[in-house]
């Protein structure tokens, strides 16, 4: 004798979600993505920029740095699929990237201010402040990167130049 039969039944049964048969597995990057590789970003704010790949993060993104002084790309996450890995590599042995993880890049929780009429017509938005920690980290990472970059002639200029397709370029035939 289990429970007493309920007095009231739902007219329609609550929907039960199907049990998923997918399992999340650790990301396997293509062989050309090795830390220290120069990548070409294909999409986003920095499309066309050539950038140094530092580390693979847990949310399946790549940690990347311009270096900032060279081309304006900060320490940033980038999707591995929107990137071309070139055959040029920079040694990142001396660069410490252990402190960078997904929480480091988590979005700030701003308290939602009440929308006022003034805001709708107001052009001037308060300037977004960059945390001092980010600036300091950028400087330290880039210092070691720049030391390595300077060893190869023209590499700094290469990183500051943007990639674009020129007349006569056949992307499927270009070697990167």
């Amino acid at each position, binding site marked *: 004798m289990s429970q007493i039969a309920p007095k009231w039944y739902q007219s329609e049964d609550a929907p039960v979600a199907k049990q998923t048969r997918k399992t999340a597995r650790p990301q396997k990057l293509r062989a050309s993505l090795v830390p220290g590789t120069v990548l070409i970003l294909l999409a986003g704010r920095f499309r066309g920029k*050539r950038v140094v790949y530092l580390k693979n993060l847990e949310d399946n993104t790549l940690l990347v740095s311009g270096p900032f002084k060279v081309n304006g790309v900060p320490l940033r996450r980038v999707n591995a699929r929107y990137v071309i890995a070139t055959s*040029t590599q920079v040694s990142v042995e001396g660069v410490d990237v252990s402190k960078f993880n997904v929480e480091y890049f988590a979005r700030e929780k701003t308290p939602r201010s009440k929308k006022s009429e003034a805001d709708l017509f107001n052009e001037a938005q308060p300037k977004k402040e960059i945390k001092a920690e980010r600036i300091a980290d950028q400087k330290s990472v880039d210092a070691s990167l720049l030391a390595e970059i300077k060893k190869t002639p023209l590499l700094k200029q290469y990183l500051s130049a943007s990639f674009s397709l020129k007349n006569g370029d056949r992307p499927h035939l270009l070697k990167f």
Partner: protein
Amino acid sequence: MSSYSTVKAANWRFVELGRVVLVDNKDLATIVEIIDQKRVLVDGPKFQRQAIALAKIVLTPIVLPNLPRGARTATVTKKWAAADIDGKWAATAWAKKLASRERRAQLSDFERFQVLVLKKQRRFAVKKAVAKA
């Protein structure tokens, strides 16, 4: 309204035994036997001995002298080395053009950038010299 024309003797590259041919813009071989109007038997030290259509090959100006008809691969290899066909071929402008085209296709993105910079430097030097003259 008269134009002078000179008659020159014909100087064709013949389909003959020993004619060095280029296959598919990369492999060298010699004609070892002529099968019929359209096909020849070719063989090279680095090319599999085979019958091939004349439409698929290009005659080069180099000839391997005194190649007996139907010569087997070992003979071809020996005579090829003795005549230094590879050296003669590499010295031609044709081979150099093919090599540079291949090198250009293999350039990495960074190498392409380096070429850009070098071309700019050359352009600048030339224009400076021209402006000075």
